[in-house]
């Protein structure tokens, strides 16, 4: 799909509630401006959008798009806002539902934020570590956590530049003092866009559903100064506890009980020291990198401190 075609479809979409226009007509207008009048595509888009705004008797604000404000990720503090972003794809995660084309983490100098791209939006594939300008994405909020959603009207332009990603990553060290309930082999709601963890086969939103298995750890690291809750996703759980999803299912099947998985994880992690690095989400650190800590690195230094009190 050409850029003009994308712009055209997006404009047609934006006006679909107000005017009876199709994307071919919009594309023809853009084409004229770009090919005959040598106007840059971005300017052409603006001009065509203004034309239709006039025709529909609308103010620019009435559209869920047009000229959004360019925002930084850390500045996103409300849901349902239409924004433009310049971001780097920091991480791509496994989508939990067929309705999601891609899900992961975007970063800019201000920090990082989760994004979701719907399968039905039919957008080009985002690649990890690439930098993009995303126009017309909409913000969302779930339990105090913000995210952005790419939709049919979003335009994606890959930029040939480096973008520094802000360090909202934290690194913590400590001993595991608790592995919380909801750890181990769990089931998630398979409904579109819902990944809630089921309680007794029920989703708090969708009722009784056929859940999909997943593996995670909700743990508490404590260094004697601070307490920090940490979440390990399926991959991080496999890395730290050495149990993959298939093995976990097998363990649960053999024992006719899913709690054996959490028990095994408790036995492996509790009372041991770890270093964990990852982004912060609310009260949790999401573990990206994990390292088990063995013997102390420098007792000598502590000894000098102790002698000097």
């Amino acid at each position: 799909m050409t850029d003009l075609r994308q712009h055209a479809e997006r404009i047609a979409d934006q006006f679909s509630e107000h005017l009876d226009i199709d994307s071919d007509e919009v594309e023809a207008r853009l084409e004229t401006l770009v090919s005959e009048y040598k106007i840059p595509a971005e300017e052409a888009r603006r001009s065509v959008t203004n034309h239709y705004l006039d025709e529909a008797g609308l103010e620019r604000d009435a559209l869920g798009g047009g000229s959004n404000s360019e925002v930084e990720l850390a500045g996103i503090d409300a849901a349902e806002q239409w924004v433009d972003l310049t971001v780097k794809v920091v991480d791509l995660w496994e989508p939990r539902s067929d309705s999601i084309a891609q899900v992961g983490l975007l970063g800019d100098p201000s920090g990082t934020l989760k994004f979701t791209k719907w399968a039905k939006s039919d957008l080009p594939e985002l690649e990890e570590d690439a930098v993009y300008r995303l126009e017309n994405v909409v913000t969302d909020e779930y339990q105090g956590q913000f995210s952005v959603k790419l939709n049919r009207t979003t335009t994606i332009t890959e930029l040939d530049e480096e973008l520094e990603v802000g360090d909202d990553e934290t690194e913590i060290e400590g001993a595991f003092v608790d592995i919380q309930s909801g750890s181990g082999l769990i089931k998630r709601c398979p409904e579109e866009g819902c990944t809630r963890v089921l309680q007794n086969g029920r989703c708090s939103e969708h009722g009784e559903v056929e859940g999909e298995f997943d593996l995670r750890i909700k743990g508490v690291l404590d260094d004697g100064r601070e307490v920090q809750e940490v979440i390990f996703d399926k991959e991080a759980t496999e890395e730290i506890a050495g149990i993959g999803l298939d093995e976990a299912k097998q363990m649960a099947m053999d024992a006719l009980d899913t709690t054996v998985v959490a028990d095994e994880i408790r036995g492996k992690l509790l009372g041991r020291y770890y270093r964990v690095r990852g982004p912060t989400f609310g009260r949790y650190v999401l573990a990206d990198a994990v390292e088990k800590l063995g013997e102390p690195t420098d007792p000598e230094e502590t000894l000098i401190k102790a002698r000097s009190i």
Partner: protein
Amino acid sequence: MSQAPTRELAQRVFASEFNDAGYTFKESDDERAPLYALLPTGARANRVFIVGTLTEKSDVGEDSEYWQGRIVDPTGTFFVYAGQYQPEAANFLREAEPPAYVSIVGKPRTYETDDGDVNVSVRPESITEVDVGTRDRWVVETAERTIERIETFDDEANEYAAMAREEYDLPIEDYRRDLLSALESVEEADDESEESAETTA
């Protein structure tokens, strides 16, 4: 949305200091308010994290199982008790074969003996077997935290230090001496293993 209560920190404290922490208190009249043991170096402890050597275990229960474990660190011995309300910890002690390095997360508990002494013990939330590296790391970490408490003991704003001065008549110097010898024991072991490595090489 109601905020979940903040989880209590697990204090790092050596056995010699822990066993002196016989004064307990609550900070609100609420029936479910957390109970704190007052550490003599001036901190409150609702929870502790300890690592040491399980040297002995015995079932001291009369009607039902009640397991006692002795956990030794470089400064002294922690007493740990687990009964029917700590089934996993009781299970661990029943199956354990001392000597073994263990990590324990637990709550300080006190009881008064017949002759009026206050004994301090640990009621475990979890016990796991660990390796010597984890034990040594704990010794250094516990020394660090104890140094931090000693260094702020004379701060005017330190309310728990003030409380400790009032409730205990214990010289802080003792705990400094204990943490020094604890650190030295880890360092000596370190040097020996290096020497033996050199000899082998």
